[in-house]
Structure formats: C-alpha cells, structure tokens
C-alpha cells in the first residue's frame, strides 16, 4: 500500500516538513510516494540517518520519490 504526497507546488521548507511528518506513519509493507518539482538532495542524508531507503525517478515532471523502511523487504517489493 502506498501513501502519495504531492509537494510539487510547495515552497521550501514545506516539502521536507511534510515528508518528515509522514515518515513515522509508514507501516510494514507500506511506502511513501512523493511528487516533487526537483530532487530533494538535503532530504537524503536525513532518510539514511533515520533508517529509510529511497528510489528517485527523475525522467518526467513531477519527479517521483519512493521511500520505505530500509529493513522492510515487503514494501520494497511492492514498489513498481
């Protein structure tokens, strides 16, 4: 199951605030699907530090970021 958050029309630092607020709600087997205008580079070290993994698709606008708990293999398998 995925939760989609569209932050593509928000000004900094709202996108990161929304994403960080949503992270604790990710359950086992679930992942976050983010729609963003640009790659959120400053978010990545925070995700690593907090034990999350991510994949970023930058080939179209808005770009998509998939975030899941690093130890959750089911969530990872669910990401298309």
């Amino acid at each position, binding site marked *: 199951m995925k939760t989609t958050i569209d932050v593509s*029309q*928000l*000004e*900094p*630092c709202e996108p*990161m605030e929304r994403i*960080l607020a949503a992270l604790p709600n990710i359950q086992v087997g679930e992942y976050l699907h983010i729609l963003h*205008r*640009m*790659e959120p*580079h*400053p978010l*990545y*070290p*925070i995700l*690593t*530090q*907090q034990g999350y*993994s*991510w*994949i*970023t*698709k*930058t*080939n179209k*606008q808005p770009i998509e970021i998939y975030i899941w708990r690093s130890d959750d293999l089911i969530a990872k398998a669910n990401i298309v």
Partner: protein
Amino acid sequence: MNTANLALQQTPPLSVPIRFFITAPLFGILASLLLIYIGPDIFSSRWGLNILALTHLFTLGFVSMIMFGAILQLLPVVAGTIIPKPVLTSSIIHILLTVGSLSLTSGFIFGQDFLLRIAIVLLGLSFFSFVAIVGYCLIQVKGNIIIGMRLALLALLITAGLGIGLVVRFAYGITLPLAMILANIHLTWGLVGWVGLLIIAIAYQVVPMFQITPQYNTKLMRWLIPILFLVLLLWTLAYLWLENNKLVGWISILIGLGLAVFGAKTLHLQIKRLRKIPDVTLNFWRVGAVGLLLSIILWITGIIWTELANQPFYPLLLFILFVGGFVLMVIQGMLYKIVPFLVWLHLQNQQLNPLRTVNMIRIPHMKQIISPKSAQRQFWVYLIALFCSILTLQFPNLIYLTGIILLVAFILLEYNLLKALKLYRSVLISIQ
C-alpha cells in the same frame, strides 16, 4: 531511475557558507562609507584609485564573497560532492579573500605599494586555491549547472590573472603594454564572465526552487552559458587585435543579447509562477532582471550611438545599473532564501540526530528565521539608495545622501543575517 542510496549526500556545516554571507555586508558598509568619503569627486576619473577601491569593495568584498559561499553550499546539492576538510578549507579561503580584499582596497585608497603587494599574494592564493579545489570537485560530474559553474570558474581565473597583472603594475611600477585594454578585459570578464555566468547557473537552481516557477527551458540551460563564454572569448581576441573597431562593438552586442535572453526568461518564468503568493525575494529578482535589461539597453545604445558612450556619466550609469541594479539585487534576494533555508535545514538535521538531541522542539519555519517584513524593509531602503545613486549623476551633491541610505541598507542586511544566526544558536541550545 536514480538509486540515490549509492550517493549519500553530505551537507557542509553551516559555518562553511555562512562565514562568507556574514562578512559580505561589512564590505558593503565599508563601500558606503568610502562613497561618503569620496563625495562628488567620484565623477572626476573612471580609473581614479578611490573609484578602483570602491568598485573592488563591491565586486570582491561583497559579490565574490557571497559567490564563494554560495558555490561551497551548492556543491553538495548540484554535484553531490563536498570540498575536502570543509571547515578548514573554507576558513583559509575566507581569511585570504577578506584580508586580500582589504589590502587591495586600502592599498588603492592610501596609495601604499606594500598593501598592494600583500593583496597580490593573498588574493592570488585565495582565487587559485578556490578554483583548484572547486574545479577538482566538479571534474567528475555532469549537468547544465555544473557546466555553468565550471565556465564561471574559468572566467574567475582569467579575471584574477588579469587583475593581478594590473595590480603588479601599480605595486612595482612596471609598465604594462595595453594596460587600459587589459583593464577593460578584466572588468568585462569579472562582471559578465565570473559574476554574470555564475548568477545564471545559480538561477537555474534557485529560481524554480524558491520562487515556485516552472524550470528554465532545457535548450536555454544547455547552450546559453557556453555560447556567452565563447562570445566573450571572441570579443577578447577581437578587442586585443582591433581595439575599438566596429566589429568589437557588434560582438559585445551579442554578449548583451545573450544576457538579455536570461533576464527576459527569468521575468517570464516569474509571471508563470505556479503559486502566486507575495514574496520579497521575487521583488529583488524582478528589479534585478529589469536592472539587467536596462543596463543592456544602455550598453547597446552606447555602442551604436558613440556620443552617448563618451559622456562622463555613461560608465557610471552602466555600473550602477548592472552591479547595483542587477548583481547586488539578485544576490541579496538569493541570501534571503538561502540563509533561512540553511538555518532551518541544519536545525532539522540536529533535531533528528539521536546522538545530539535531548529535547524535541518545533523548528522555526523559514519565514520565522528572517521575517518577510524585515527583508521587505531592507529591500525598499536598498531600492531608494539605487534610485538616489542614479539621481546623483545629475545632482552630484546627492552622493552623501546616497551613501547614507546605502549604509543603512547594508546595516539592515547584516542585522537580518545576524538575527537568523542568533536564532539558530538559541534553538540549537534548546535542542541540545
């Protein structure tokens, strides 16, 4: 698909860029004081030593200082890389640039050769080490912003090389062939190459990010900076060989048109903003783009109508419009987004670090770090100073008023930045 796990980003400590940002307005304050000190004599000679000091307080002490900080901060974001030993390296470069700029400008003001000799060494070390370190970090990465940064660094090398050559002439009394032509080439590479190209490259990143506009056109991002760089090279060669030939003028019109494309596109993107909410940064960038376009119109008119270019006010008005109206405007606008964002980001990082965090508190929002009201107030003071400086060309005695208003503008800028830093420290103490 980009598996970003492989490229773990590092954010440099806040002190790395902020030391440059905090120092820059102090040079603005010095420049304002010098303006008041020179008074109406400013109109006596374009190449007077006081004028040289004044222009370098702005271009080295304010503009290059902020550009250095901005590049060091942008490297991890656009290139996924960080300079080695960031705090030590940035401290050394910052001290070299600060003391070097002070030596150069005071050497000009007091006519002391030894200060100029010190400046040659310090500024030379600062520029060449900065270009070498940042250039090394940019070698293995690709992208339009990276190409822009690389070419801006090359332009900085050319500007610094010529600048040092010209100062050697003052400091050691060596006669330099084509000194005036080399001075004009130094000025053009500094303002259009180093500063202009870098502002364009940074705008590709910060305008869509902070002003919620659509992205710049891909073809424009790919070609504008390299074409401008090549035309600058062509202009330099033509100017060296043909001096003030008509062909040189036509080539420089091309440079103006290239910059105009950037100014017009930026205004166009701002009109197409995705969220039309009031924003002080937008005011800085709008006036900046208009200042750029006006300076280009004046530049091109001066080339076509040479009588205008021979008027004493012409080079000063061009400088006021390009540096005061465009460069300083957009740079200040950029600071009002980058500094609050960095403060917020670093506090957020601290808060989420379980090894350092004791108390979980709400991190202040960007608009609480530097209030839009304070930024807006500083914008208006600076804008009035800009208008006054243009009026000074007609009413020379207004220069004292211009200097005072400009002084207030830079004091307010410094106050706003220091207030953000103070808030950072107090929230950090609350977290830890």
